Protein backbone atom coordinates (compact mmCIF):
# COMPACT_ATOMS: atom_id res chain seq x y z
CA UNK A 1 0.00 0.00 0.00
CA UNK A 2 2.75 2.43 1.02
CA UNK A 3 4.82 1.52 -2.01
CA UNK A 4 1.82 2.20 -4.26
CA UNK A 5 1.38 5.59 -2.62
CA UNK A 6 5.06 6.37 -3.08
CA UNK A 7 5.04 5.44 -6.75
CA UNK A 8 1.69 6.99 -7.65
CA UNK A 9 1.44 10.69 -6.78
CA UNK A 10 -2.22 10.89 -7.82
CA UNK A 11 -3.14 8.08 -5.46
CA UNK A 12 -1.17 9.84 -2.73
CA UNK A 13 -3.18 13.04 -3.28
CA UNK A 14 -6.43 11.09 -3.20
CA UNK A 15 -5.55 9.32 0.04
CA UNK A 16 -4.21 12.43 1.80
CA UNK A 17 -7.09 14.60 0.60
CA UNK A 18 -9.74 12.08 1.62
CA UNK A 19 -8.09 11.50 4.98
CA UNK A 20 -7.85 15.22 5.76
CA UNK A 21 -11.45 15.86 4.71
CA UNK A 22 -12.75 13.00 6.82
CA UNK A 23 -10.75 14.15 9.84
CA UNK A 24 -11.93 17.73 9.51
CA UNK A 25 -15.58 16.83 8.99
CA UNK A 26 -15.51 14.32 11.86
CA UNK A 27 -13.91 16.95 14.06
CA UNK A 28 -16.49 19.54 13.07
CA UNK A 29 -19.40 17.20 13.81
CA UNK A 30 -18.00 15.88 17.08
CA UNK A 31 -17.14 19.38 18.28
CA UNK A 32 -20.87 20.04 18.54
CA UNK A 33 -21.25 17.32 21.17
CA UNK A 34 -21.60 18.94 24.57
CA UNK A 35 -18.50 18.61 26.82
CA UNK A 36 -16.58 16.94 23.99
CA UNK A 37 -15.46 20.03 22.10
CA UNK A 38 -11.95 20.30 23.55
CA UNK A 39 -11.25 16.56 23.25
CA UNK A 40 -12.58 16.46 19.69
CA UNK A 41 -10.42 19.42 18.71
CA UNK A 42 -7.26 17.95 20.21
CA UNK A 43 -7.84 14.51 18.68
CA UNK A 44 -8.70 16.09 15.33
CA UNK A 45 -5.60 18.28 15.48
CA UNK A 46 -3.31 15.32 16.17
CA UNK A 47 -5.02 13.31 13.44
CA UNK A 48 -4.25 16.14 11.00
CA UNK A 49 -0.62 16.17 12.13
CA UNK A 50 -0.39 12.51 11.07
CA UNK A 51 -0.82 13.65 7.46
CA UNK A 52 2.67 15.13 7.65
CA UNK A 53 4.30 11.86 8.66
CA UNK A 54 6.86 10.55 6.21
CA UNK A 55 7.44 13.86 4.48
CA UNK A 56 10.88 15.49 4.74
CA UNK A 57 10.71 18.74 6.69
CA UNK A 58 11.78 20.85 3.72
CA UNK A 59 8.98 19.40 1.55
CA UNK A 60 6.52 20.52 4.19
CA UNK A 61 8.04 24.00 4.19
CA UNK A 62 9.55 23.57 7.64
CA UNK A 63 13.08 24.55 8.54
CA UNK A 64 15.23 26.78 10.71
CA UNK A 65 16.81 28.82 7.95
CA UNK A 66 15.81 32.51 7.97
CA UNK A 67 13.86 31.84 11.15
CA UNK A 68 13.54 35.54 11.95
CA UNK A 69 11.93 36.17 8.59
CA UNK A 70 9.57 33.24 9.03
CA UNK A 71 8.48 34.32 12.51
CA UNK A 72 8.02 37.89 11.38
CA UNK A 73 6.03 36.64 8.40
CA UNK A 74 3.81 34.74 10.82
CA UNK A 75 3.12 37.93 12.75
CA UNK A 76 2.35 39.75 9.50
CA UNK A 77 -0.05 37.00 8.41
CA UNK A 78 -1.73 37.13 11.82
CA UNK A 79 -2.23 40.87 11.40
CA UNK A 80 -3.91 40.36 8.03
CA UNK A 81 -6.06 37.46 9.28
CA UNK A 82 -7.25 39.39 12.33
CA UNK A 83 -7.57 42.86 10.86
CA UNK A 84 -11.28 42.59 9.90
CA UNK A 85 -12.17 41.31 13.36
CA UNK A 86 -10.00 43.92 15.07
CA UNK A 87 -11.63 46.71 13.09
CA UNK A 88 -14.96 45.83 14.66
CA UNK A 89 -13.43 44.48 17.81
CA UNK A 90 -16.28 43.55 20.07
CA UNK A 91 -18.16 41.74 17.34
CA UNK A 92 -15.52 39.08 17.67
CA UNK A 93 -16.12 36.16 20.01
CA UNK A 94 -13.33 35.74 22.53
CA UNK A 95 -11.82 32.26 22.71
CA UNK A 96 -12.34 30.70 26.15
CA UNK A 97 -9.09 29.79 27.94
CA UNK A 98 -9.88 26.07 28.01
CA UNK A 99 -9.92 26.00 24.21
CA UNK A 100 -6.49 27.60 23.85
CA UNK A 101 -4.51 24.35 23.68
CA UNK A 102 -7.01 22.65 21.33
CA UNK A 103 -6.90 25.75 19.10
CA UNK A 104 -3.10 25.55 18.89
CA UNK A 105 -3.13 21.83 18.10
CA UNK A 106 -5.78 22.23 15.40
CA UNK A 107 -4.06 25.26 13.84
CA UNK A 108 -0.72 23.48 13.60
CA UNK A 109 -2.43 20.30 12.40
CA UNK A 110 -4.35 22.13 9.68
CA UNK A 111 -1.24 23.85 8.37
CA UNK A 112 0.81 20.64 8.34
CA UNK A 113 -2.06 18.83 6.60
CA UNK A 114 -3.21 21.42 4.05
CA UNK A 115 -0.23 23.67 3.28
CA UNK A 116 2.28 20.95 4.21
CA UNK A 117 1.46 17.41 3.12
CA UNK A 118 -1.44 18.08 0.74
CA UNK A 119 0.37 21.00 -0.89
CA UNK A 120 3.50 18.87 -1.44
CA UNK A 121 1.47 15.97 -2.81
CA UNK A 122 -0.43 18.24 -5.21
CA UNK A 123 2.83 19.91 -6.22
CA UNK A 124 4.12 16.50 -7.27
CA UNK A 125 1.27 15.89 -9.70
CA UNK A 126 0.60 19.33 -11.15
CA UNK A 127 3.13 21.87 -9.93
CA UNK A 128 2.56 25.06 -7.99
CA UNK A 129 -0.79 26.17 -9.50
CA UNK A 130 -2.41 22.81 -8.72
CA UNK A 131 -0.89 22.85 -5.22
CA UNK A 132 -2.20 26.33 -4.43
CA UNK A 133 -5.64 25.92 -5.96
CA UNK A 134 -6.10 22.33 -4.82
CA UNK A 135 -5.05 22.91 -1.22
CA UNK A 136 -7.27 26.01 -1.06
CA UNK A 137 -10.25 24.12 -2.48
CA UNK A 138 -9.90 21.26 -0.03
CA UNK A 139 -9.29 23.68 2.86
CA UNK A 140 -12.55 25.41 1.98
CA UNK A 141 -14.44 22.15 1.63
CA UNK A 142 -13.05 20.99 4.97
CA UNK A 143 -14.62 24.01 6.67
CA UNK A 144 -18.01 23.52 5.02
CA UNK A 145 -19.46 21.74 8.04
CA UNK A 146 -18.04 24.02 10.71
CA UNK A 147 -18.76 27.37 9.08
CA UNK A 148 -21.95 28.92 7.67
CA UNK A 149 -21.90 29.12 3.86
CA UNK A 150 -21.45 32.91 3.99
CA UNK A 151 -18.11 32.44 5.74
CA UNK A 152 -16.66 30.17 3.10
CA UNK A 153 -15.50 33.03 0.85
CA UNK A 154 -13.41 34.37 3.71
CA UNK A 155 -12.19 30.87 4.52
CA UNK A 156 -11.19 30.32 0.89
CA UNK A 157 -9.45 33.70 0.73
CA UNK A 158 -7.52 32.89 3.91
CA UNK A 159 -6.51 29.52 2.47
CA UNK A 160 -5.37 31.16 -0.76
CA UNK A 161 -3.31 33.74 1.14
CA UNK A 162 -1.60 31.08 3.28
CA UNK A 163 -0.98 28.84 0.27
CA UNK A 164 0.51 31.74 -1.69
CA UNK A 165 2.84 32.48 1.21
CA UNK A 166 3.80 28.80 1.27
CA UNK A 167 4.72 29.06 -2.42
CA UNK A 168 6.25 32.53 -2.47
CA UNK A 169 8.47 32.03 0.57
CA UNK A 170 8.73 28.22 0.49
CA UNK A 171 7.75 28.40 4.12
CA UNK A 172 5.16 26.85 6.39
CA UNK A 173 6.42 28.31 9.67
CA UNK A 174 4.79 31.69 9.04
CA UNK A 175 1.37 30.22 8.13
CA UNK A 176 1.55 28.08 11.27
CA UNK A 177 2.36 31.11 13.46
CA UNK A 178 -0.24 33.31 11.78
CA UNK A 179 -2.91 30.63 12.00
CA UNK A 180 -2.17 29.87 15.66
CA UNK A 181 -2.33 33.55 16.64
CA UNK A 182 -5.56 34.05 14.69
CA UNK A 183 -7.22 31.03 16.28
CA UNK A 184 -6.05 32.02 19.76
CA UNK A 185 -7.53 35.48 19.29
CA UNK A 186 -10.89 34.27 18.00
Amino acid at each position, binding site marked *: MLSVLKSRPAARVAVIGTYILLVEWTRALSSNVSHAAAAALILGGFALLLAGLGWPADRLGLGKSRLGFRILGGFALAVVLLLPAAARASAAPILPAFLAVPAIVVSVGEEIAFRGALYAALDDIGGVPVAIIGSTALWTAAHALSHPPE*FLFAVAAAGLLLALWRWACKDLVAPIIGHVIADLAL
Partner: protein
Amino acid sequence: MRRVWLLAAAAAAYLLAAWMVAPGFYDGFAPAQPYNWLCPPFHVAANQPPKSGSLQIKIIGGVSDANSAFTDDVQVVIGFLPGAFDATGKTVIAVDIKPVSPCPKPPGLTFVTNTYLITAGAPLVKKSSLLMRYSDIVPAPSTVYYSSSADGPWTSIGALSEAQPFTIDTTTDKLGYFAAGYPTNSVSHSSSTTWLLPLAIALLIIAVLVAGIPLAIMRRRRAGVEGEPDESEP
Protein backbone atom coordinates in the same frame (compact mmCIF):
# COMPACT_ATOMS: atom_id res chain seq x y z
CA MET B 1 8.53 41.06 -7.08
CA ARG B 2 5.66 39.22 -8.75
CA ARG B 3 5.33 37.05 -5.67
CA VAL B 4 5.03 40.09 -3.42
CA TRP B 5 2.28 41.54 -5.59
CA LEU B 6 0.42 38.22 -5.64
CA LEU B 7 0.65 38.01 -1.86
CA ALA B 8 -0.57 41.59 -1.53
CA ALA B 9 -3.48 40.88 -3.88
CA ALA B 10 -4.39 37.75 -1.91
CA ALA B 11 -4.24 39.73 1.34
CA ALA B 12 -6.51 42.41 -0.13
CA ALA B 13 -8.94 39.76 -1.40
CA TYR B 14 -9.00 38.16 2.03
CA LEU B 15 -9.62 41.48 3.79
CA LEU B 16 -12.52 42.19 1.45
CA ALA B 17 -14.05 38.72 1.85
CA ALA B 18 -13.60 38.69 5.63
CA TRP B 19 -15.01 42.19 6.01
CA MET B 20 -18.27 41.03 4.44
CA VAL B 21 -18.94 38.56 7.27
CA ALA B 22 -18.64 39.51 10.93
CA PRO B 23 -16.39 38.89 12.73
CA GLY B 24 -14.28 37.84 9.74
CA PHE B 25 -12.50 34.55 9.32
CA TYR B 26 -12.16 32.40 12.38
CA ASP B 27 -12.00 28.69 12.95
CA GLY B 28 -15.12 28.78 15.05
CA PHE B 29 -13.67 27.51 18.34
CA ALA B 30 -15.25 30.26 20.40
CA PRO B 31 -18.74 29.29 21.50
CA ALA B 32 -21.36 31.25 19.69
CA GLN B 33 -23.66 33.65 21.51
CA PRO B 34 -26.96 32.59 20.02
CA TYR B 35 -29.54 35.30 19.59
CA ASN B 36 -33.18 34.99 18.69
CA TRP B 37 -33.85 37.47 15.95
CA LEU B 38 -37.12 38.93 14.86
CA CYS B 39 -35.42 40.30 11.74
CA PRO B 40 -32.23 38.22 11.39
CA PRO B 41 -29.21 39.57 9.51
CA PHE B 42 -28.88 38.12 6.03
CA HIS B 43 -26.05 35.80 7.05
CA VAL B 44 -27.96 34.11 9.88
CA ALA B 45 -29.04 30.70 8.64
CA ALA B 46 -30.80 29.20 11.65
CA ASN B 47 -32.95 31.37 13.85
CA GLN B 48 -35.54 31.03 16.55
CA PRO B 49 -38.11 33.77 17.12
CA PRO B 50 -37.50 35.89 20.22
CA LYS B 51 -39.54 35.28 23.36
CA SER B 52 -41.72 37.60 25.38
CA GLY B 53 -41.71 37.95 29.14
CA SER B 54 -44.05 39.03 31.90
CA LEU B 55 -43.99 39.60 35.63
CA GLN B 56 -46.46 40.36 38.38
CA ILE B 57 -44.91 42.72 40.93
CA LYS B 58 -46.48 42.57 44.36
CA ILE B 59 -47.39 45.65 46.31
CA ILE B 60 -46.33 45.24 49.91
CA GLY B 61 -47.36 47.93 52.37
CA GLY B 62 -48.22 50.25 49.47
CA VAL B 63 -44.76 49.87 47.97
CA SER B 64 -43.95 47.88 44.84
CA ASP B 65 -41.64 44.97 45.58
CA ALA B 66 -38.17 44.59 44.12
CA ASN B 67 -38.11 42.18 41.20
CA SER B 68 -36.80 41.59 37.70
CA ALA B 69 -38.74 41.01 34.51
CA PHE B 70 -37.10 39.19 31.65
CA THR B 71 -37.95 37.54 28.39
CA ASP B 72 -37.99 33.75 28.38
CA ASP B 73 -34.81 33.72 26.29
CA VAL B 74 -33.20 36.24 28.69
CA GLN B 75 -32.41 38.67 25.91
CA VAL B 76 -33.87 41.52 27.95
CA VAL B 77 -33.81 41.88 31.72
CA ILE B 78 -35.21 44.87 33.57
CA GLY B 79 -34.70 45.15 37.31
CA PHE B 80 -36.96 47.19 39.59
CA LEU B 81 -35.97 48.54 42.99
CA PRO B 82 -38.45 48.57 45.89
CA GLY B 83 -40.88 51.42 45.26
CA ALA B 84 -39.90 51.68 41.62
CA PHE B 85 -43.56 52.17 40.62
CA ASP B 86 -46.26 54.59 41.68
CA ALA B 87 -48.37 51.88 43.30
CA THR B 88 -51.25 54.09 44.38
CA GLY B 89 -54.42 52.02 44.42
CA LYS B 90 -52.70 48.91 43.10
CA THR B 91 -52.36 45.47 44.62
CA VAL B 92 -50.19 44.11 41.83
CA ILE B 93 -48.41 45.62 38.84
CA ALA B 94 -48.10 43.65 35.62
CA VAL B 95 -44.94 44.13 33.56
CA ASP B 96 -44.77 42.87 29.98
CA ILE B 97 -41.84 42.66 27.57
CA LYS B 98 -42.61 41.98 23.92
CA PRO B 99 -40.45 42.01 20.79
CA VAL B 100 -41.75 44.60 18.35
CA SER B 101 -42.75 43.66 14.82
CA PRO B 102 -42.16 45.01 12.23
CA CYS B 103 -38.60 45.85 13.24
CA PRO B 104 -38.11 49.63 13.46
CA LYS B 105 -35.33 50.88 11.17
CA PRO B 106 -34.89 54.55 12.07
CA PRO B 107 -32.77 56.57 9.65
CA GLY B 108 -29.25 57.26 10.92
CA LEU B 109 -29.36 54.48 13.53
CA THR B 110 -28.42 50.83 13.33
CA PHE B 111 -30.14 48.54 15.81
CA VAL B 112 -28.20 45.36 16.55
CA THR B 113 -30.88 43.86 18.80
CA ASN B 114 -34.57 43.31 18.45
CA THR B 115 -36.72 46.22 19.54
CA TYR B 116 -38.68 45.47 22.69
CA LEU B 117 -41.76 47.13 24.11
CA ILE B 118 -41.74 47.16 27.90
CA THR B 119 -45.01 48.13 29.54
CA ALA B 120 -46.28 48.16 33.12
CA GLY B 121 -49.58 48.73 34.86
CA ALA B 122 -48.21 51.76 36.71
CA PRO B 123 -45.74 54.57 35.94
CA LEU B 124 -42.11 54.29 37.01
CA VAL B 125 -40.98 56.68 39.71
CA LYS B 126 -37.46 55.30 40.21
CA LYS B 127 -34.75 54.43 37.73
CA SER B 128 -34.63 50.79 36.76
CA SER B 129 -31.73 48.83 35.37
CA LEU B 130 -32.07 47.47 31.85
CA LEU B 131 -29.86 44.79 30.35
CA MET B 132 -30.01 43.80 26.69
CA ARG B 133 -28.12 40.91 25.19
CA TYR B 134 -26.74 41.04 21.65
CA SER B 135 -25.32 38.54 19.21
CA ASP B 136 -21.63 37.84 18.64
CA ILE B 137 -22.08 38.14 14.90
CA VAL B 138 -22.94 41.82 14.86
CA PRO B 139 -20.94 44.88 15.89
CA ALA B 140 -21.37 45.76 19.54
CA PRO B 141 -23.91 48.49 20.27
CA SER B 142 -22.66 51.75 21.75
CA THR B 143 -25.90 52.74 23.46
CA VAL B 144 -29.50 51.84 24.21
CA TYR B 145 -32.17 53.80 22.40
CA TYR B 146 -35.58 54.65 23.86
CA SER B 147 -38.77 55.77 22.20
CA SER B 148 -42.35 56.18 23.34
CA SER B 149 -43.52 55.01 19.92
CA ALA B 150 -42.32 52.34 17.49
CA ASP B 151 -42.10 55.09 14.88
CA GLY B 152 -39.72 57.15 17.00
CA PRO B 153 -38.19 59.57 17.61
CA TRP B 154 -35.43 57.52 19.25
CA THR B 155 -33.32 58.92 22.08
CA SER B 156 -30.04 57.52 23.32
CA ILE B 157 -30.22 56.70 27.03
CA GLY B 158 -26.57 55.67 27.20
CA ALA B 159 -24.82 52.54 28.36
CA LEU B 160 -23.10 51.54 31.57
CA SER B 161 -19.92 49.52 31.73
CA GLU B 162 -20.43 46.04 30.38
CA ALA B 163 -20.96 43.42 33.10
CA GLN B 164 -20.82 40.37 30.85
CA PRO B 165 -19.71 39.80 27.28
CA PHE B 166 -22.31 40.55 24.64
CA THR B 167 -24.57 42.51 26.97
CA ILE B 168 -25.25 46.21 27.26
CA ASP B 169 -26.57 47.78 30.46
CA THR B 170 -28.29 51.07 31.11
CA THR B 171 -30.88 52.64 33.39
CA THR B 172 -34.26 54.05 32.51
CA ASP B 173 -36.88 56.09 34.33
CA LYS B 174 -39.62 55.41 31.81
CA LEU B 175 -40.95 52.43 29.95
CA GLY B 176 -41.60 52.13 26.25
CA TYR B 177 -39.64 50.90 23.24
CA PHE B 178 -35.99 49.90 23.66
CA ALA B 179 -33.31 48.73 21.26
CA ALA B 180 -29.51 48.64 21.41
CA GLY B 181 -27.50 50.00 18.53
CA TYR B 182 -25.24 52.72 17.31
CA PRO B 183 -25.32 55.71 14.98
CA THR B 184 -24.99 54.32 11.46
CA ASN B 185 -22.11 56.64 10.59
CA SER B 186 -20.18 55.61 13.71
CA VAL B 187 -17.71 52.78 13.91
CA SER B 188 -16.93 53.09 17.61
CA HIS B 189 -18.65 50.68 19.94
CA SER B 190 -18.41 50.60 23.69
CA SER B 191 -17.25 47.40 25.29
CA SER B 192 -14.81 46.53 27.99
CA THR B 193 -13.16 44.01 25.67
CA THR B 194 -13.27 46.22 22.60
CA TRP B 195 -9.71 47.40 22.93
CA LEU B 196 -8.09 43.98 23.45
CA LEU B 197 -7.97 42.73 19.87
CA PRO B 198 -7.09 46.10 18.27
CA LEU B 199 -4.34 46.53 20.86
CA ALA B 200 -2.95 43.07 20.09
CA ILE B 201 -3.03 43.82 16.37
CA ALA B 202 -1.37 47.20 16.91
CA LEU B 203 1.40 45.52 18.91
CA LEU B 204 1.86 42.92 16.19
CA ILE B 205 2.09 45.63 13.53
CA ILE B 206 4.70 47.46 15.62
CA ALA B 207 6.62 44.20 16.12
CA VAL B 208 6.58 43.48 12.38
CA LEU B 209 7.75 46.99 11.56
CA VAL B 210 10.38 47.26 14.30
CA ALA B 211 11.85 43.85 13.57
CA GLY B 212 11.14 43.85 9.85
CA ILE B 213 12.96 47.02 8.89
CA PRO B 214 16.35 45.93 10.32
CA LEU B 215 15.79 42.47 8.85
CA ALA B 216 15.11 43.94 5.42
CA ILE B 217 18.18 46.21 5.67
CA MET B 218 20.36 43.27 6.71
CA ARG B 219 19.05 41.15 3.85
CA ARG B 220 19.65 43.95 1.37
CA ARG B 221 23.20 44.47 2.63
CA ARG B 222 23.92 40.75 2.56
CA ALA B 223 22.50 40.48 -0.95
CA GLY B 224 24.66 43.42 -2.00
CA VAL B 225 27.82 41.92 -0.50
CA GLU B 226 27.21 38.45 -1.88
CA GLY B 227 25.92 39.74 -5.20
CA GLU B 228 22.76 37.73 -4.85
CA PRO B 229 19.43 38.79 -6.23
CA ASP B 230 17.12 40.44 -3.70
CA GLU B 231 14.49 37.71 -3.87
CA SER B 232 16.67 34.77 -2.96
CA GLU B 233 15.06 31.50 -1.97
CA PRO B 234 14.56 30.96 1.74
